[in-house]
Structure formats: C-alpha cells, structure tokens
C-alpha cells in the first residue's frame, strides 16, 4: 500500500459535510427554501471535492487517500477510510447523482426540508460504504443508508409506498444481519489466530478459516450483497421499491444503492474468500445469465414504464455480475465502467420518467404516447438515453458491455454467447418503451394536456448526463485509467489461480 501522507481529512469531509447539512436541515424544518439551497450547496461542494480528487489522482494506482483513527478501542474497531480508483469512480457517481437528485426535487412541496435531509443522510451513508475499510464501519454505513431510503419511499412515494418501503427494508436487512454474524465470526477467528482483534479488511484477509465454516461465512457475505445487487431470484424488492419511490429515490436506488452490492462483492467478499469465490464464480455467472434473460423477459411485459426501467436495471446488473465472474482484467474493467454508466443512463431514464409523470400524471406505457410532436426536446433526450441504455455503439453502456462480453468470451465462450443474446433482448424492451412512451397512440391522457417542453432546470439536469454518456462512449479512457491498477491488484492480489496452488 502506498499511503499518501495527507494532512487534511478529505474523505471524512465527504461524509461529514452531508451529515451536518442533513442535521441542520432537520432542525430548520420550517425553512424549506433555506434547506433546499443548503442541500444544493453542500452536494455541489462534495461534487467539487470529488472532481478535484479525480483530477489530482490522474489515474494513479494504490490508495489515493487514506485515513485511519482508533474508534471503539475495546473491540479493536477503527475508523478507516480509503479511496482507490474503484471507489473513486463510485464516489464521483454518488456526488454527481445527489446533485441531480436535489435538482429534480426542486419543486417538491410536502415536508421539503426533511426530504432534502434524507437525501443528504443517504449521501453520507453511501459515501461511507464506498470508503470504509473497516468491516464494522462498513456494516454501520451499510445499514445507515437504508433508513433514509426507507423514509424516502415510505413518505414521499406513490400509491403502494408503504408496502414497497417495508419490503425493501426487510429484504436488505435479512441479508445484512447474516453478514453481521459472519463478520463477527471472522473477527473472532482472526483474533484467536493472531491475538490481534481487528475488523480491518487488510488484516482479516489473512485469516485462515476452517474448511467447514468457510462456505457458510462466504455465503452470508454473498447473500447480503446479492440482495442489494440484486441477483435474480433475490430481486423481488427492487421493482416495487423503484416503482414506488419518488424520482430522486429511484435515481438513488438505481444509480447508487445497487452499486453498493457490487462494490461489496469486489471489495470485500471476493478478497476475503478467494478460494470460495473461485469455486462460486460459475454459479454466480449462471444466476447472472439467468437474470439477464429473466429480467429482460419480464421487462418486456411491463405496462408501467418505471417498472420496465426497474427490470432493465436487474438485467444490467446481470451483465455486471457476469463481468465479475469472468475474472479477467477486460471484463472486470467493463463491469466497473458499466456500474458507472448504468448509474448515468438508468438514472437519466428515471429522471425523465419523473418529468413525464409530472406532466401527465401517468406512467402507463399504453396511456402515454405521441409526445414526440409536442415536446420534441424532451423526446429526443428520452430516445438518446434509451439508446444508450440498450447499448448503442458510441454511447456509454456499449463500452462496458462490449468489454464484459469480450472478457466473458475469453473466460467461457458459452457465457459470452449467451450474454450476447441478452443484448438483443435489451434492445427489444427498450425500443418498446421508447415506442410506447414517445411515439405510438395515446389513450386520451396525453392529448388533453398542454405540453411544455423541458424547463431550463430540467435541461440543466439532463445536459451533463448527456455529455457524460457521450464522453464515456467516445473516450472511456478517462474513466478506465483510475480503475486499471486497482483491478489488476484485485485480480492478482486475490489471484484465484495462485491461491489454488497453480492449478487452473
């Protein structure tokens, strides 16, 4: 590890700034306008810091930033934050997404200050997940980010919001509580072996685990992460949560929360249990492939546009998991890049559905339609993001998907061939969405209302997203550079082949 001798705790700032703003926002509940500007200011400040780090980092490897303080001494728990290329990309995505989440909720009326406060709490929690290197701290943030999401869905969501919120909470808790037991077990094993009771990820990697226990511990971790990813068949909370959440909530769910599960696999589950991981990759790949087709099939049958996009997310995370399972540099890089890209395109689609819903009060594909003639700019953006989402070459998702497919072919030609079919499916449901929402006949609803095209605020939200879509699609190197070395380290440091004693 090359530790950067830093003096200023930038990483803590990324967590503490939103936290303080969230608390202040709660206290000043009666001043929603103030809290709105506060939320925007703070999220912009956080975005500025992350962009600053991104520019300074300039594709270097190792820990770009690292902080470590004792926290709960009697259990050997430390407050350890670290930022490498992989977390950098996700932190950047988080900071960027939260700015959009604030902007899209600009005119929300009901309990506005509390709403912004929840968004800020969530930003702090997600940042914490992407930065923690101490398993206890990680677990803490992992659960902390659930609570604001629970309230966002439950208080500000659509008709079946309570059902969706409770289901979301209990599903994710079910996975993570078992992970807590596994963390404690690992901690005890490591402590008994070395006398050093610590939750540090780096230390726990060197624990030798009894063969009888190892599959169970690994399963507990993978289950916690797979629920969040979500891997089919653990995905059933996702369509409900995504559909019922307010637009900002759907944006955060799709853009960020799903990534925490994948990040957990990459950062924690695979490095901690390299042999188990190697043994489970084909199984995970099978689930991923099944998920790609199953979700595509279900997505195609949806009548609720938001639900269709939600299922498209399930299909996309299937690609990402497949990329991890291929376990080579190309696919892994593709996976991480797709994590970033998916946050942008799916986030954009949810944002646009929010805008359309705001105008039409409807999300049903059958009732929408005929928008192209009335709001051409809006429709053009929608088409653009939908095309990006289905993997049109030159746009962002294509890069990630093609890398994953190349890597998958390399690892196992069958996986690659099957996944290829998934891309076709993606085109099918996405085109159906586009056709139903912006062209096609509408049943009354869209005819009656007078259409306003995009407001300047909405344009302000969508323009940077579109720029990023093109940027990643045309010159992905900017975003591939920072993850190159971490990915290589991950593959070598936890090299599955080496761990198995040279046998393939």
């Amino acid at each position, binding site marked *: 590890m090359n530790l950067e001798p830093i003096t200023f705790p930038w990483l803590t700032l990324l967590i503490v700034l939103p936290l303080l703003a969230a608390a202040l926002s709660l206290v000043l509940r009666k001043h929603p306008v103030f809290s709105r500007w506060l939320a925007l200011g703070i999220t912009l400040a956080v975005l500025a810091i992350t962009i600053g780090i991104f520019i300074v980092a300039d594709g270097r490897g190792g820990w770009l930033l690292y902080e470590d303080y004792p926290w709960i001494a*009697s259990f050997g728990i430390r407050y350890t934050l670290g930022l490498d290329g992989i977390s950098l990309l996700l932190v950047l995505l988080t900071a960027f997404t939260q700015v959009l989440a604030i902007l899209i909720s600009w005119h929300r009326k009901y309990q506005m200050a509390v709403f912004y406060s929840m968004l800020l709490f969530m930003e702090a929690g997600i940042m914490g997940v992407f930065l923690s290197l101490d398993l206890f701290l990680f677990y*803490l943030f992992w659960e902390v980010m659930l609570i604001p999401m629970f309230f966002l869905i*439950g208080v500000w969501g659509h008709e079946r919001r309570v059902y969706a919120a409770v289901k979301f909470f209990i599903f994710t808790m079910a996975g993570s509580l*078992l992970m807590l037991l596994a963390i*404690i*077990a690992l901690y005890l094993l490591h402590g008994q072996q070395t006398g050093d009771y610590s939750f540090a990820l780096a230390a726990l990697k060197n624990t030798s685990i009894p063969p009888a226990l190892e599959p169970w511990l690994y399963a507990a971790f993978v289950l916690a992460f797979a629920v969040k990813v979500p891997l089919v068949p653990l995905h059933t909370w996702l369509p409900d949560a995504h559909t019922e959440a307010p637009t900002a909530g759907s944006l955060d769910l799709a853009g960020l929360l799903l990534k925490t599960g994948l990040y957990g696999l990459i950062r924690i589950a695979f490095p901690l249990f390299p042999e188990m991981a190697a043994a489970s990759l084909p199984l995970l790949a099978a689930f991923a492939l099944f998920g790609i087709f199953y979700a595509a099939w279900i997505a195609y049958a949806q009548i609720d546009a938001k639900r269709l996009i939600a299922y498209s997310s399930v299909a996309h995370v299937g690609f990402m998991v497949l990329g991890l399972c291929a376990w080579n540099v190309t696919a892994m890089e593709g996976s991480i890049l797709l994590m970033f890209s998916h946050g942008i395109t799916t986030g954009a689609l949810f944002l646009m559905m929010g805008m359309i819903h705001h105008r039409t009060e409807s999300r049903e594909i059958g009732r929408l339609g005929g928008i192209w003639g009335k709001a051409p700019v809006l429709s053009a953006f929608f088409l653009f993001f939908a095309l990006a989402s289905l993997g049109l070459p030159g746009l962002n998702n294509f890069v990630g998907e093609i890398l994953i497919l190349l890597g998958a072919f390399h690892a196992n030609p069958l996986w690659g061939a099957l996944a290829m079919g998934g891309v076709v499916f993606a085109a099918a449901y996405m085109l159906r969405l586009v056709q139903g929402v912006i062209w096609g006949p509408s049943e009354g609803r869209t005819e009656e209302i007078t259409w306003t095209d995009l407001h300047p605020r909405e344009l302000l939200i969508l323009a940077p997203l579109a720029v990023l879509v093109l940027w990643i699609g045309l010159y992905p190197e900017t975003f591939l550079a920072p993850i190159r070395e971490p990915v290589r380290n991950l593959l070598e440091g936890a090299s599955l082949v080496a761990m198995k004693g040279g046998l393939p």
Partner: protein
Amino acid sequence: MTGDDLAALLPILVLALGSVGLLLIGAWFPRRRTLILTGVGIAVAAAAAAAFYTPPVEEISGLYGSGLYARFFTVLWSLVAALVLLLSVRYAVELGFAGGEYTALVLFGAAGMSLLSASTSLVGFFLGLEAFTLVFYILIAFHKGDPLGAEAGLKYLVLGAVATGFMAFGIALIYTASGTFHLPEAMEGITAGARFRPIGLLGWGMLLVVIGFKVSLVPFHLWTPDVYQGAPAPVAGLLSTGSKGAVFAALVTLLAGLPADRSDLIPILWVLSAISMVVGTLSALRQDNVKRMLAYSSVVHMGYVMIALLSGGASGGRAIVFYLVAYAAANLGAFGVIASLTGAGGEPQTYDDFQGIGWRNPFRCAALAIFLLSLAGIPPTAGFIGKFGIFYAAMESGYGVLAILGILASLISLYYYLRVVVLMFMTFECEVDHARGGISEHSALTICLGAVVILGILPGPLLDLIAALFS
C-alpha cells in the same frame, strides 16, 4: 453495622430517606410539580453520591457490595428514576396523582433496584427484590379511576406473591444445601458431588422461576402485556427497564458463583432464552396496542440478554451491562413518548392513536422512531452496539445457534417496530390532537435520545467503564 457500612450505603440512604421525607412533606404541601421535581433532585443527588463518593468498605454487612459494580448500577437506576419522575411531572398533574406518594414510591423503588443489583447474598437479593416489588404493587394501580390499572395491579400482586413464596422457599433450600446465604459460596451446594446437591438444585430451580417471572421470560411472561397496558406509562417504563435490569445485574453476580461446569443449568437457560425470543417475537407481531407490543418486545429483549448470560465470561458480563443501559435508554424513551402524548383523553395506546401523528409532533415522534430503531438494533444507535456485544459474546462461547435465532428474531421484530414508524409518518395526517407535552418531558426525552445516539456512535468510554467493572 458499623459507621463505615452506613457511609457505604450513602446513595441508598439518600434515596430512601428522601423518599420518606417527600412522603411526609407531601402530606402537608400537596404540590405535585414541586414534589416530583424535588424527587428528581434527590435521585440525581443519589446518583452523584454513588458516582463520586468512594465508600470505605467493599461489602456492607455481608449483604451488599459497594464496589464499582454496585455503584455503577446505583447510578444507573437513580438516573432512570430521575427520568421516570421527569416524565411524570405533567402526566401526574393530568391524571391527578398524589405527588408525594408517587415520588416517594419511585425513589424507594430505585433504592430497591440498586440494592438488588448490589446484592452479594441471597438475603440481600430477597430484600432488594421485595423492596421494589412492593413499590410496583402500588404504582401499577396508581391511577385509581382506571379499571385496567386495577386489573393490572391485581395481576401483578397475585403472581408476585406466588413468586415471593417460591423465592423464600428456594433460598431456604439453597441454604440447606450449602449452609450459607453469601454469594458465591451459597452456590457451592450445587456443585457436582456436593452432599445435598438435589436439594440445592431444587432451590435453584425455584429461584429461576422467580427470576423468569420478574424479567418475564417465556413461559413466565403472561402477566407482562396486561400489566404494561394497565400501568401508567412512566411506571411501565420503570417496570420494563429498572426492575428487569436490576434482576439481571444480580443474576450476573449469582451465576459468577457457579462452578465453571454449568452443564446442569445450561440446557434450561438455553431453552428459556430461545423460547423467549421466538414466542415474544411472534406474539409481538399480532398486537395492535403499542404498550402490549413493547411488553412482548421486552420479552424478546430479555431473551437476548439471556444469551449473554449463558455465554458468561468477561464479554458476556460486559455485553449484559451495556445492553441494559442501551435498552433502558430506548425503552424508557418509548414509554416516555407515550406519557408525553397523554392528554385528557387518556394514553394513546392503540395503533390507531398513532396514525398520522408524526408530522404534528415531529420531535417526539422522530424520537420514538429512533427509540424503536434502537430496540430493533439498527445502527447508529446504542441498541446496535448492544446487540453486537451480545452476538459477539455468543459466538465467542459457541452459542452460534442462539445467535442465529437472535438474528432471526431481530429481523422479524423489524416488522412490528417499523409498523409504528409507518403509522406515524407514512399515513395521512390525522386531526386528532394529542397533548403537546411539557418542558420536563421534552428534556427527559432529549436525554434518552442523546444517550441512544451518542452511545451508538461513541460507545468507547462506556465500554471501557464497563470493562473496569469486571476487572
């Protein structure tokens, strides 16, 4: 009893004499607010005395300890009593409680709990337990106009009297087996090979029945929901935190006296813990009254604490003490919110009463939500650290199955805790006006909330202090 012994009893004396004094003053100056606030002052003074005055002796007349462990619990129960009284100021006025008697009883109860936690002899155990049980006989039925309160009081009285009989008999049998009341020697009577081992075991079994009744472990829990429902909310808070916690504190001392090989007891304790968690959780799911839900939730929580008790050792003891503190803060807070919402129309108890009140009473309902999340063990609250400590102790001493049961119970418990949160914040706002709550209640709730959040984020200092208790 020497002067030193008396000096060591100082905090208890402050509580007991303060209680008597208030009772007398209350007869001439029946001013509720003043009396109750004086009671708060007395309880805080007792806590300060226990915290800052180092007693000259380690043990008082062979009955009570006065070491760090005893002092810690005296501080804790005195503070709990102070909070209960703070929560009662407006409540007592609203329901027309006799201020002097009420305050005196709460203070006396705190003295009993402190004595029980400090007991180093079975006689001390008996005296401490009876002291606060007597107090509860009265306090539970303190609201004279409420038939549910009278029913609850009677229920507690009848079952409590039976329990007292069991306890006296059990202690007598243990004495027969070992020839001493003093702990830990009294437990030697049941070591393998002891002459009167069967008698000792019988006595210990009877004692376990009493303990099971007091901390409401399944199958001795049946009184709990009715009594919680009928008792005034602050009293239910005291009953659910102080009386149960004090028994567990004494139990740690009691079990420390057992031989290392506890194979006779382990299956019984194991089963008690497991069925308390399972039955408590499943029963809590079906409630539509918040106080009854909290009653069953306390059954589950006592099941968790039993896990730590079984695990034993340093980490088990530490986990118990931390959990008791975390549980006390959250549970007292939850009952406190109910007390503060109580107006002329009585206590809000059913789930319907909580529907849509969140945005009308944002501070108290948010506080209740946080207390419930702490009870559910969600970070960053004290309840999470407490649960972590218990599961840690369980895994360390090989009670993995109980830990998994506990995890499953907490998962299901989320449903009934969240239900209240959902009702408060995620339904349509209602027009029902609950009481706005007084400044004393708000300050007590702020203290509980502060404890729950701060212990969840920075538990280090308290954990270190607790580690010192066992060294």
